[in-house]
């Protein structure tokens, strides 16, 4: 019994080994592994050439002093031979073993009186009617000895035989002066700075977006969020209304601003007065809510109206500040040659950021205010009315919300797929959405809290996982098409990838926090925002800092190759140098990458240790 089982065991092991061998054999076949090729002389020669070039990064360059020495030479010996050329022996001179030769024939070139250790090519110069100055073809190269003499064999190039005299020229070059930083090294420095800052900007802006997103993708925070159908449906309607309101108001404000406030002083006045008014109003409404929580509908409505007004004022302030900065920036940068151009330019760029962000903020803030208020109404309906009447309420609002959501989604898809057909973008989705809403309202018991938080969590997770699976290199291709070749496209691609991966990593950190403090803060009567600020944020700051540093490190590494697809940075010239077979310059680029990546590695690990 025992014997047979051990036999089966060894058979199984043997079979497994055989299978592994088969797998690897197949792997060798599909990866075209070819050892004969690696030994071939031609391959070895090119390997040697490249490795030697890479081992000599062209960091330093020298000035050269050049001496050209030329003797006449006949390609194809004329009948009767040629006279040996007269040679001036006062300076450097060369002697050629014959005054004429057939193509592909080997001759001997001797040189005398060159500067010691000078070196350079020996060229055949072909003259013709098209090129009266001659076209040099390199036949060989020389390296003079300490006396300035050399003797080399060179092969005549395979060219058409000519009657007119051609020439053999030796170009002796010798280094003079101290070594200088090479042009390649200067370009590398510029590009490596570009690379590091590309990574810095991508990390910063990606992180800014990733932090709020990470809360929505954290399971432990989101599963607790449950609302009855009436609240979900109404808040969906509220969000749609609020977002529409946000778009309308930001359009209106922009229009108003361009129409009436074009002069600098008017903009300045607006940029000063509006924020003051907005913050005063915010203080009145948000910060000075009567201390006892007032749960009545009327006071809530008043509060929402105040909040909307305050939000509109703050939006207007953002727009005015943006315009003010743009105007100041335009005044500061009359041309590109002013000192500290980049700082002045940044003023108008900051203004542009404000102008771009204003509508986005408007949509989110207005959507949030109205959606939140509607959600509260829905919650109150579910809390305070009888099951039957809240069921009726659900039957009305759920189909409406479903229809709105479906139409909005199809509107978004329409942009991609250009249906251009109201049946597809309006009637069908409205009908199907309403049907789903109606079905939900019928099936779900009217007061049962639905796991809306879990659904939102699922949506965020799916989007993040999808985005994360696309490499920044691939994203860069899209951004290059949008903003053109260069580091801006690379920074955008890296930033987007940073949002996706860091939001995922962050949310995992949120999921691993201790639940005790969370529970304790909730027990004090804190609301959701307060719970996050007091119980979640203190716990996640160290891992967030650590992951941000880590991401910067990764982004520096990524940004070194994002140039391969046109994303700017050092990868751009590295690829160029490789394609031009300029391996010594490529070697400088690689050296710079190695130094930067290694030092980033070190710096980020030191900083992480400090913060955590």
């Amino acid at each position, binding site marked *: 019994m025992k014997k047979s089982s051990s036999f089966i065991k060894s058979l199984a092991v043997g079979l497994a080994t055989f299978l592994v061998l088969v797998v690897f054999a197949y792997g060798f076949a599909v990866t075209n592994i070819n050892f004969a090729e690696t030994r071939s002389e031609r391959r070895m020669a090119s390997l040697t050439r490249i490795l030697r070039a890479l081992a000599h990064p062209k960091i330093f360059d020298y000035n050269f002093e050049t001496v050209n020495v030329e003797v006449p030479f006949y390609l194809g010996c004329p009948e009767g031979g040629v006279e040996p050329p007269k040679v001036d022996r006062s300076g450097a001179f060369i002697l050629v073993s014959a005054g004429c030769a057939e193509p592909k024939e080997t001759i001997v070139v001797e040189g005398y009186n060159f500067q010691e250790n000078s070196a350079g090519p020996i060229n055949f110069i072909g003259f013709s009617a098209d090129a009266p100055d001659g076209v040099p073809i390199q036949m060989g190269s020389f390296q003079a000895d300490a006396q300035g003499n050399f003797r080399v064999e060179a092969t005549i190039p395979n060219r058409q035989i000519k009657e007119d005299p051609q020439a053999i020229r030796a170009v002796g070059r010798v280094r003079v002066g101290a070594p200088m930083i090479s042009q390649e090294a200067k370009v590398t420095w510029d590009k490596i700075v570009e690379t590091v800052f590309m990574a810095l900007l991508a990390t910063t802006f990606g992180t800014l977006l990733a932090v709020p997103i990470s809360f929505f993708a954290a399971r432990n925070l989101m599963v607790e969020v449950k609302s009855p159908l009436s609240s979900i449906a109404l808040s969906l309607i509220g969000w749609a209304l609020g977002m529409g309101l946000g778009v309308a108001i930001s359009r209106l404000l922009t229009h108003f601003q361009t129409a009436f406030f074009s002069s600098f002083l008017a903009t300045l006045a607006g940029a000063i007065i509006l924020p003051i008014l907005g913050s005063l109003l915010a203080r009145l409404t948000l*910060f*000075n809510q009567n201390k006892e929580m007032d749960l009545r509908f009327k006071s809530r409505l008043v509060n929402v109206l105040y909040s909307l007004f305050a939000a509109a004022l703050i939006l207007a302030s953002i727009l005015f500040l943006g315009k003010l900065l743009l105007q100041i920036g335009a005044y500061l940068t009359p041309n590109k040659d002013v000192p500290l151009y980049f700082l002045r330019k940044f003023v108008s760029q900051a203004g542009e950021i404000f102008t771009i962000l204003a509508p986005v903020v408007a949509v989110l803030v207005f959507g949030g205010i109205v959606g939140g208020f509607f959600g509260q109404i829905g919650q109150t309906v579910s*809390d305070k009315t009888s099951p039957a009447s809240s069921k009726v309420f659900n039957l009305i609002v759920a189909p409406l919300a479903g229809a709105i959501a479906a139409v909005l989604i199809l509107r978004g898809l329409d942009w991609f797929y250009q249906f251009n057909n109201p049946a597809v973008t309006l009637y069908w989705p409205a009908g199907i959405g309403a049907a789903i809403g109606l079905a939900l309202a019928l099936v779900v018991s009217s007061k049962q809290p639905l796991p809306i938080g879990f659904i939102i969590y699922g949506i965020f997770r799916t989007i993040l996982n999808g985005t994360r699976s696309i490499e920044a290199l691939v994203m860069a291709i899209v951004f290059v098409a949008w903003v053109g070749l260069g580091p801006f496209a690379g920074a955008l691609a890296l930033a987007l990838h940073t949002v996706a991966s860091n939001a995922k990593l962050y949310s995992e950190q949120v999921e691993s926090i201790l639940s*005790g403090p969370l529970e*304790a803060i909730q*027990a004090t*009567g*804190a609301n959701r925002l*307060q719970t996050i600020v007091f119980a979640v944020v*203190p716990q996640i700051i160290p891992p967030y800092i650590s992951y941000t540093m880590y991401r910067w490190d990764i982004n520096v590494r990524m940004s070194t190759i994002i140039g391969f697809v046109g994303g700017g940075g050092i990868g751009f010239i590295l690829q160029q140098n490789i394609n031009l077979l300029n391996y010594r310059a490529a070697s400088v680029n690689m050296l710079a990458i190695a130094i930067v990546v290694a030092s980033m590695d070190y710096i980020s690990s030191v900083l992480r240790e400090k913060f955590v």
Partner: protein
Amino acid sequence: MLEVKNLSKTYDGGVQALKNVSFNVKQGEFLAVIGLSGSGKSTLLRCINRLIEPTGGQIVWDGQDVTAASQDEMRHIRRKIGMVFQHFNLVSRSKVITNVLAGRLGYVNPMLSALNRFPKSDVAMALDQLDRVGIKNQAYKRADELSGGQQQRVGIARAMMQQPAMILADEPVASLDPVLAHSIMQYLEKINKEDGVTVLCSLHFLDLVHRYADRAIALNAGELKFDGSPADINDEKFREIYGKDAERVG
């Protein structure tokens, strides 16, 4: 003041943690909740302020139906119910004073508090509460720099910041040594006697129950097995609460 009627809780996995538990608590009472680990003590306490949603029954507090309260009303109710935890549940990276001030979160303006701004009167009150539990000098240390006993005092100070009418203490001394346990229990007793705060306290050790509690209720596998004076727990009752093979210690 607190009425618990037929309270039941069945967890998602099907575990029935509470079965038809009913009892009343009078204003100013010190009620001990005893029972084995897993008998439902923590679940009971957390159902009262709805950190855990009960699946059946009713809780009435101060004439208000806690089980039917909306989220906003619930936050309103929680302000008046302080809670003290076995593992203190402080935010360890925050300062002691921040932890204590967190007790005011239900009262203060949500926006300002999110920016970590509290009224001066609240800060003074926090220092007073820390003084009361004898660790005012530690107020600006990080919470995790304190010893276990000190951390639990911070926990009590946090609960007291709510100006509670009732404190739920979930095994407040289970992770402390006996000497510290008594000092913490004395703070709770002081709060109970001097401030008239009702205390519901789950406890492991019967001698602590005898020493501090006015009344005790006992849970076994989610069922109420005893409701009366601690002095009435005789050997027979003891075995009913803790199982046949249990022996008294301490």
